[in-house]
């Protein structure tokens, strides 16, 4: 029987972290329980809803189906990491609020992290492309229109800067 625990080092929201993780833990378990990053939601826990989505080395991953031990050496970004040095929320979060893309809010952190992945590419996407790129998120409240609008608005604002 190998060790049930493993020491891992990773960067979380810009800070170096170390943790002894149970090999059976998902990254969602690690982020929520050890690091108290509760923006990471557990919806389905089988990779379908996107509520637990975080960026790993800049790419979106559903952290419920990613083993915590695999995070060793990785750079992880959760919604909490979007907070500016002045404590203010980011443009994409504000756009979600302004466009009423948040209702109950359960899907919101995950959806915003996909939006961050897209926006970081710095490309102009059509509405259709935005829909495809946001298609890994199930939202029972907003009907998606406002989510697409919030992403588009932020994309256009950033590209015109």
């Amino acid at each position: 029987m190998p060790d049930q625990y493993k020491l891992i080092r990773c960067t979380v929201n810009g800070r170096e972290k170390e943790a002894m993780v149970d090999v059976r833990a998902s990254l969602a378990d690690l982020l929520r329980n050890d690091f108290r990053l509760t923006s990471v939601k557990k919806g389905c826990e089988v990779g379908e809803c996107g509520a637990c989505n975080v960026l790993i080395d800049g790419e979106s991953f559903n952290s419920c189906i990613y083993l915590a031990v695999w995070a060793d050496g990785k750079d992880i970004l959760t919604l909490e990491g979007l907070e500016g040095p002045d404590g203010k929320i980011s443009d994409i979060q504000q756009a979600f609020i302004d466009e009423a893309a948040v209702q109950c809010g359960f899907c919101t952190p995950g959806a915003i992290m996909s939006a961050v992945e897209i926006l970081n590419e710095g490309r102009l996407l059509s509405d259709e492309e935005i829909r495809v790129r946001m298609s890994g998120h199930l939202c029972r409240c907003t009907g998606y229109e406002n989510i697409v609008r919030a992403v588009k608005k932020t994309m256009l604002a950033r590209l015109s800067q």
Partner: protein
Amino acid sequence: MYDFKALYEAKSVDEAVRLRRGHPGARIIAGGSDVLIRIRNGKWAGAELISIHGIDALRGVKLEDDGTIRIGPLTSFSHLASDPVIGTHIPVLAEAANQVGSPQIRNIGTIGGNICNGSPAADTPPTLFVLDAQVELTGTEGARRVPVRDFYIRAGVVDLKPDELLTAVLVPGEAYRGYTGHYIKYAMREALDISVVSCSVNVKLTEDKKRIENVRAAFGAVGPVPLRTPGAEAAARGGETTERTVKAFASAVLGEISPWSDWRTSKAFREHIAEELAARALIRSIELGGGGIHA
């Protein structure tokens, strides 16, 4: 917390083979998007896992000197879809990779897992079947190569020896040079849904673009494993690029598939869709090759 008994992490192919020998009952985990689901739903609860996630040498795509495209089994769908070698030589495989699940699943899931999982409905196998792809399997005795068509034994079971792992997917130059192809997935939703039927076709046209020099077709979710339809291929091979050829090709498919009825849809509907997808994928492949369909 997942319910598994142990996790052994391999950092190299050699180490993975050694772990395979040392833990005969253990299952390989790559991206985990099939394995972890099965642990969560209890089917594989309590299993021992050998993680190959950390073997970076098994990621990425290379064009070899003889024109063979070597795809590392840990290459994710999104990396496959954006890879320049794939985009230039076999864009249809990028098209197939882009049909998988959702953006996050395309970052998590690997092409090796898609094959070794053995699902008849997986998105990349039909295209690998028409590209005459080979799989490289490495074990104690070294590496062997098998056509991906022969790798599938029955639903959920592939020809992987107890000490082996998949270490490459190889697409030979003669299988893609001069060919254009198209993949269509028919599902009830546009994202996060499994195929009702899927179809991949590729063609090589004659120089004047008026005839089909060669054609290959494969289907997903119409039998226990993905399958080629040699009869339909023969019906269109050498034929003119006409509606008649397309029709002969598509209707021949019906004699070679064995779809089923389930909660998703009926056998009759699957047959209807398979025939329609065959026609559409052939027409599109001909168009991509610079040809057109004549009356």
